[in-house]
């Protein structure tokens, strides 16, 4: 089973878990309608579309409403302690959550004690809390963008807001930032860095890179990193090797963006609709 956990920006959204379905541009989780906007909804939507194309069961999503007060995040952290005690996942992706160290630590201890540990992917707020609490190396994959990579590379910063200037200045030197993140144990086993050139690396260095097609506007579109993480998560859950999954996911996300003929004003749902064709095209190459 492939699971995803994250918050949705609606205060009245209950804490629920269930199969994620994407039909006619509408996303539902356990029969709850979820607007497909940037963030965890975009990740779930991309993962659901990918799962359909490659013929694996739809992801199981665990969501809660949170607009930044942290109440939904706290509820979800607590909810997942029970879920991880009872369910088996081969792959699990952690996404938009309020970074709360003691909640993360409790959840991490449950995961660590599991007899069969899932392949764990962390992005967004959950990646921040994994790094800030000193647990980064307990995860299999982080998916930062360039700004977030600088945060991982800065051993002193508790949040990207406090990344030091001399490290931010190094943003064009991605390999140096990756090395620094691994040196200070602030990286997962693999890092997929999203940027003008996407790359997968481990502690030994860069494993593969994808830099085409290039659509400059993609950088401005909220959710393009979320869709990449969603596609990648689904591919990994199918049993695909991480390097192959990363290469296919990076190409598919770029191609889906290209098919949408994006401008900086394009919205992420327009790109998600192109994921099935882009993935089919990449898989048939």
């Amino acid at each position, binding site marked *: 089973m492939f699971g995803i956990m994250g*918050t949705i*920006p609606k205060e009245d959204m209950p804490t629920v878990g269930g199969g994620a379905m994407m039909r006619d541009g509408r996303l539902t989780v356990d029969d709850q309608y979820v607007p497909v*906007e*940037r*963030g*965890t*909804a975009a990740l779930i939507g991309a993962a659901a579309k990918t799962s359909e194309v490659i013929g694996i069961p739809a992801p199981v999503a665990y969501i809660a409403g*949170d*607009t*930044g*007060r*942290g109440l*939904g*995040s706290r509820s979800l952290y607590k909810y997942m302690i029970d879920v991880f005690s009872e369910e088996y996942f081969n792959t699990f992706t952690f996404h*938009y959550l*309020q*970074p*709360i*160290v003691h909640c993360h*630590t409790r959840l991490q*201890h449950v995961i660590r*004690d599991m007899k069969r540990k899932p392949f764990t992917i962390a*992005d*967004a*707020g*959950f*990646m*921040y*809390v994994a790094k*800030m*609490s*000193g*647990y980064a190396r307990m995860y299999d994959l982080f998916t930062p963008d360039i*700004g*977030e990579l600088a*945060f991982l590379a800065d051993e*002193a*910063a*508790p*949040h*990207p*807001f*406090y*990344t030091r*200037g001399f490290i*931010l200045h190094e943003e064009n030197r991605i390999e140096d930032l990756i090395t620094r993140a691994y040196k200070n144990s602030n990286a997962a086993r693999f890092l997929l860095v999203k940027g003008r050139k996407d790359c997968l690396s481990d502690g030994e260095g860069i494993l593969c890179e994808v830099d085409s097609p290039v659509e*400059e*506007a993609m*950088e*401005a*579109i*909220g*959710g*393009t*990193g979320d869709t990449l993480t969603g596609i990648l998560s689904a591919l990994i859950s199918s049993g695909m090797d991480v390097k192959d999954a990363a290469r296919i996911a990076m190409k598919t996300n770029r191609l889906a963006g290209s098919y949408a003929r994006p*401008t*900086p*004003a*394009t*919205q992420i749902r327009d790109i998600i609709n192109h994921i099935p064709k882009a993935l089919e095209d990449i898989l048939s190459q």
Partner: protein
Amino acid sequence: MLLEDLFRRKQKGNLPGANECADRGIMVFDHTGDVIQAEDILRKGGWEVRVMGPPPEIRTGCDLVIEFPLIEELNILRVLENERIIPIGIVPVTGPLLQPVNLFHTKDFGDYIMVRAANMKLTVEKKTGIIVNISGGGCPDVPFLASRMVGRNLNEAPSPRSIGHTLCGYALQLAYEEVQRRCSE
């Protein structure tokens, strides 16, 4: 048996290097009276805060500080400002000398301009001033802020400072101010 227990306990404990106070911040005030009032307001608001002595790196303010959930800085600051209690400094517990990001990256797309502050990006159509996209970030108020701001003019959209809650919201506020500055040039 004893060794086995010890091993199990060690395994269940935190990792070496784990930092349980990494998400905490320190607020510095001029006067002890402000500390007491701020503590009262924040406790009533449901936040976990505590009054303590300042770390040695902090050389300004009175001899008490408030430890608080750093991630919620934007929301907490707004609550205190509404009560006219203004801290003179806010720093992370783990790095009292750290400063908020002050580097901006700007990208010109022709009809659009994008400004990035830390992990947050905000893009505006130059001709109309309409916010067309917000990307980056990882705290739960980012998708919320985007849903309230995208599609609205810079002058009409609510500012992240007024409706955001977290450090990502704060970074977006900096990008928002920088875009406003550039669009007014």
